[in-house]
């Protein structure tokens, strides 16, 4: 039973074991530059990028290597100085084939030259959007939606509140926690840039109550900044889901199928706000990110600043290697992350962590018949009927699956987490969503 607190929250959700202490005390350190980086050309939701380099080209750190004219897209940049070795198809972290640029890094890696003298107070909202687009910013919590698109809401929707998602409600992950502890003032500058971009009067940083030290740091940094505030949220999964977070902080409910702009909100991840600050102040594109390497299957859990395109194996080796019996290797958090069959995939802009579970830490059950206990219905933060979505998907009754709310599922996994019959609801919901989308296109 949950302990009732007066912290803000939403209805539904679950309380998984958090296991944050494994890595939360580890300061961010730089990961080694790998001999070769594998940079997928499209790391965002939206139109695919065109490749801008060819094999044999010399590239520098931060050079644009992929871009698109389409509005919903995000450019990719080289994360190392070196030579383009090849452009090839690789198996991405989701299992789908993606085009990637493989760059052999030069033995000498020059530091990225920070552009000095940017006056952050003078930039306009339009300029912020441009900066975000040039830097290839995407949502760094995992969904990887292009940031500049989010910063350009429909004309008739005025944004009054920018919400910074610093909940980090996924168990195990601690990278946002460390960022807030170590770079609170830069984060607040990023929040101000976001507010400026959409013309919002207030900016709220939402932090779960298990990171009170971060709350203190950010509060200190936000002191005297008009409109910027820090709110403490109940520790519950998925507190950081966009709609849940907006509801917890403002009491506004985003209608089904609508975007946060419908209720005059903009939600950005803490890491994204920081990346925006870096892009605006230093002219630095998004070619590296902070992520957490953790889990019972890692010898030395830690938080690393790693180049985009670094293979997972390089990071795991840097953290002392694997420990214990083989289990699962997950890119992202344990609730929404993607299981990998080996450590060859590269990290991308949306990778918030590498989690390694040992065999004894995995509760693998055999899928049984639904016993209609209703625990999934109670856990679903969107108030959907996960058991019926599964049932209709099994029967391929897509119209009923849609009416049961399949399209509103954002795959948080609460239903499967509590299911006594070990039903993988998320898998069925994905199938239903894909089928419904395919039917619509026809």
């Amino acid at each position, binding site marked *: 039973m949950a302990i009732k607190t007066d912290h803000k929250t939403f209805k539904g959700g679950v309380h998984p074991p958090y296991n944050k202490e494994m890595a939360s005390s580890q300061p961010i350190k730089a990961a080694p530059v790998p001999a070769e980086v594998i940079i997928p050309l499209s790391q965002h939701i939206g139109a695919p990028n065109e490749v801008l380099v060819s094999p044999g080209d010399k590239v520098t750190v931060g050079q644009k290597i992929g871009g698109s004219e389409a509005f919903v897209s995000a450019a990719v940049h080289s994360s190392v100085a070196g030579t383009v070795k090849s452009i090839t198809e690789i198996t991405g972290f989701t299992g789908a084939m993606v085009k990637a640029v493989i760059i052999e890094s030069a033995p000498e890696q020059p530091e990225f030259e920070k552009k000095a003298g940017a006056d952050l107070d003078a930039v306009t909202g339009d300029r912020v959007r441009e900066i975000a687009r040039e830097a290839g910013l995407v949502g760094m919590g995992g969904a990887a939606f292009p940031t500049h698109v989010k910063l350009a809401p429909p004309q008739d929707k005025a944004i009054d509140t920018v919400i910074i998602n610093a909940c980090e409600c996924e168990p195990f992950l601690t990278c946002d926690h460390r960022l807030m502890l170590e770079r609170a003032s830069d984060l607040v500058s990023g929040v101000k840039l976001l507010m400026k971009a959409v013309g919002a009067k207030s900016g709220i940083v939402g932090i779960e109550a298990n990171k009170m030290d971060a709350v203190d740091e950010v509060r200190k940094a936000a002191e005297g900044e008009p409109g910027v505030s820090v709110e403490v949220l109940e520790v519950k999964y998925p507190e950081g889901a966009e709609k849940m977070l907006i509801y917890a902080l403002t009491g506004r409910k985003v209608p089904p199928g609508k975007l946060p702009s419908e209720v005059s909100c903009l939600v950005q991840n803490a890491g994204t706000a920081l990346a925006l600050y870096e892009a605006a102040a230093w002219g630095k594109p998004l070619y590296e990110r902070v992520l957490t390497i953790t889990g019972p299957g890692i010898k030395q859990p830690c938080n690393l600043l790693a180049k985009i395109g670094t293979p997972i194996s390089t990071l795991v080796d840097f953290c002392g290697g694997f420990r214990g019996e083989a289990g699962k290797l997950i890119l992202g958090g344990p609730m929404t992350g993607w299981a990998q069959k080996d450590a060859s995939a590269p990290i991308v802009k949306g990778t918030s962590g590498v989690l390694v579970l040992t065999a004894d830490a995995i509760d693998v059950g055999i899928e049984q018949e639904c016993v*209609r206990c209703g625990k999934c219905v109670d856990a679903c933060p969107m108030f959907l*009927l996960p058991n019926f979505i599964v049932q209709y998907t099994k029967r391929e009754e897509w119209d009923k699956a849609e009416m049961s709310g399949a399209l509103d599922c954002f795959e948080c996994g609460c239903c499967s987490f509590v299911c006594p019959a070990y039903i993988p609801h998320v898998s069925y919901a994905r199938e239903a969503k894909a089928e419904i989308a395919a039917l619509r296109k026809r």
Partner: protein
Amino acid sequence: MADTMQVTVSPHLHRRDETISRGMRNVLVALAPLGIWAIIIFGFNVVYILAVSCITAALSEIVMRKIMRRPVTLSDGSAMVTAILFAFLLAPTTPLWVVAIGSFIAVAIAKELFGGLGKNIFNPAIFARVVLFFSPLAVYSQRYARPFFWKTTGFFSPVATSINNNVSSGVVYKTLAGNSTSLVTAATPLSLFKSGRLLPGIVTGPTPVGSTWVTSSGRPNVGGLFLGLKSGTIGEISILLILLGGLYLIYKGTVDWRIPAGIIGAFFLLTLVTWYHPVDNLFGGGLFLGAFFMATDWVTSPVTRRGKWIFAIGIGVTIFILRFWSARPEGVALAIIIWNPLTLLIDRYIAQPRFGEVTNPLFSKLPILPKSKPVPAAKSAPEKT
């Protein structure tokens, strides 16, 4: 290590100990005190009934699963829960062969023939009880023994009921030793109200705990009703222990509090309004056992919060109607079995408004008959998180 990683869909965590067998074990733990209390009140005969019920249930499940070529799932414990719940609905002197028939009906017919756990549309225990109730075997399962009747028959001796048409009471109890006695029957508190009689002499006299069975006006003592010093089925007698077990299950998350609250609340309110022996009706019969352990069955109760309230209040009202207007003193089992199949309708057609839904419709617009092909409807852009 790296080449033997498991690959599954997210989430990669599962709540510890959240399994079907764990839920069933919670129910068994909650039921244990009731069984022990029944043994104290009705003697060792209860153990024989429970044993026969459990063994028959297990055998029925194995046989049915083998016939239907499905994996045997005895280990999930649902057959044991059904068997014990069914036994708890019986009079403590029910002949063992009747128990075996009922247990077979519960597991083999009400559960396995419908497709096994999760597919049954009736609560198996209640289904078997109601079948017995409307069958010629009813006479065996409706004669209730007075508390501590074992003092006349012996604690460990099995009691068998046989019908003797020449005896006005209709029922004679025999022990295996051959002693027969007809002195042990007693009306249940509810049948007393129903027949308009007050307590006959057989239930008067001091109880082992010192108080008396009845108040000065001749009504059953409320304390006795609550603690379980009364005649009735094996499991229904002690309201106190049912409450303890039920609260344990609510704490464990196995049972949703809305269902017992709705049933008992609606029923109690109606008896208050009509002033139909509210307290005695509340504690006198199977209301608590039904509300906490029967109606809360996962498979045969709705999954949504709104549906649970409708289901629970519906059962409460139905129990009242049955007790108030029908010729029978009890109505809990019938009310639950009436509402069990309605669960499917409630789940499908009572809408659960989604997060952020502006309109708050009571009914969902699911088609009643399957459509020939799904109709794609244009909608706004899909959600991005």
